[in-house]
């Protein structure tokens, strides 16, 4: 490949500049645009199940209100705050990377990981409760307060488990990515010239936060419907 290198031999390359990009600016823009495109698909991915959720919410308003009241709103609100804090620390980690402050960056990334894990722990506690209460859909489902609504409440719980489960899966993947970014930050890979991976990680993390911002009112805070 010495022929290929001829044209470029007077440039000295940044160690993380990939061969098919002209410069770091192009590489950075490609990475962030790629993540945005991925988030587009994520919006439609969550959007699909959300559409189904709303169809049935409109069909069965009573069951949806009853289902939401089976949730522990305190836990849900706590988790919302926890996730927002993690989003803040993530944003600050990106800022630290932009400024080339390695120590700060590692600290904020670690904090993000801790809050993310805290979210998953709380979610686990909730899941455990629901399991014990027989609120897992399928043959485990034992909930008899309003027999006439049981089937529809089960449908609500399907959406609850499905949507929060999908969200939790994204959190777990995000935590894995965080570990990788932390390792790279520890190796001092990032600085004002090259911080695209941190930025992209941030975009993903904030997106997962936004999903929860909608899931919280949709699954925990449905007000009783009054018949009139």
């Amino acid at each position: 490949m010495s022929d290929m290198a001829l044209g470029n031999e007077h440039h000295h390359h940044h160690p993380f500049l990939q061969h098919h990009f002209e410069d770091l600016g192009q590489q950075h823009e490609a990475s962030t645009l790629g993540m945005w495109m991925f988030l587009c698909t994520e919006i439609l991915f969550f959007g699909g199940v959300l559409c189904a959720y709303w169809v049935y919410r409109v069909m069965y308003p009573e069951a949806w209100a009853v289902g939401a009241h089976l949730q522990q709103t305190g836990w849900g609100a706590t988790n919302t705050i926890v996730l927002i804090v993690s989003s803040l620390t993530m944003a600050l980690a990106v800022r630290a990377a932009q400024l080339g402050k390695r120590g700060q960056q590692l600290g904020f990334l670690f904090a993000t990981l801790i809050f993310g894990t805290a979210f998953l722990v709380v979610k686990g506690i909730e899941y455990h409760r629901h399991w014990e209460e027989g609120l897992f859909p399928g043959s485990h489902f034992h909930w008899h307060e309003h027999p006439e609504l049981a089937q529809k409440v089960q449908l609500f719980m399907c959406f609850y488990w499905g949507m929060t489960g999908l969200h939790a899966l994204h959190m777990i993947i995000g935590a894995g990515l965080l570990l990788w970014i932390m390792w790279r930050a520890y190796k001092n890979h990032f600085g004002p010239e090259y911080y695209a991976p941190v930025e992209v990680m941030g975009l993903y993390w904030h997106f997962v936060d936004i999903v929860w911002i909608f899931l919280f009112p949709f699954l925990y805070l449905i007000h009783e419907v009054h018949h009139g």
Partner: protein
Amino acid sequence: MADTTEHHQLEHAPHVHVTPLWIYIAVFLALAVGTIVTYLASLVDLGMWNTPVALIIATIKAVLVILFFMHVIHSTRLTWVTVVGSFLWLGILFVLTFADYLTRGWSLFK
């Protein structure tokens, strides 16, 4: 030679826009307040307005995160198009699906 290379690198390095710290803190506080307001609003009976209020607050929170945490406010027009476009497409899914569900009860001949 080294100087020109350096210049070249700087010219083509990513355009860094560092958001001031206070903006991040302010957005965080707004999000926290939004969460509390959503919660409180759900306790009050607003009649038919409970759902719209919850939706509006959630949307405001999401917009704040997108604009500031995700840096869209300083991003290229392409990023704006991407964000707006994907929500527009989600809108297509919702509007046309509900065009069916909400009109099923209507009757042509009564």
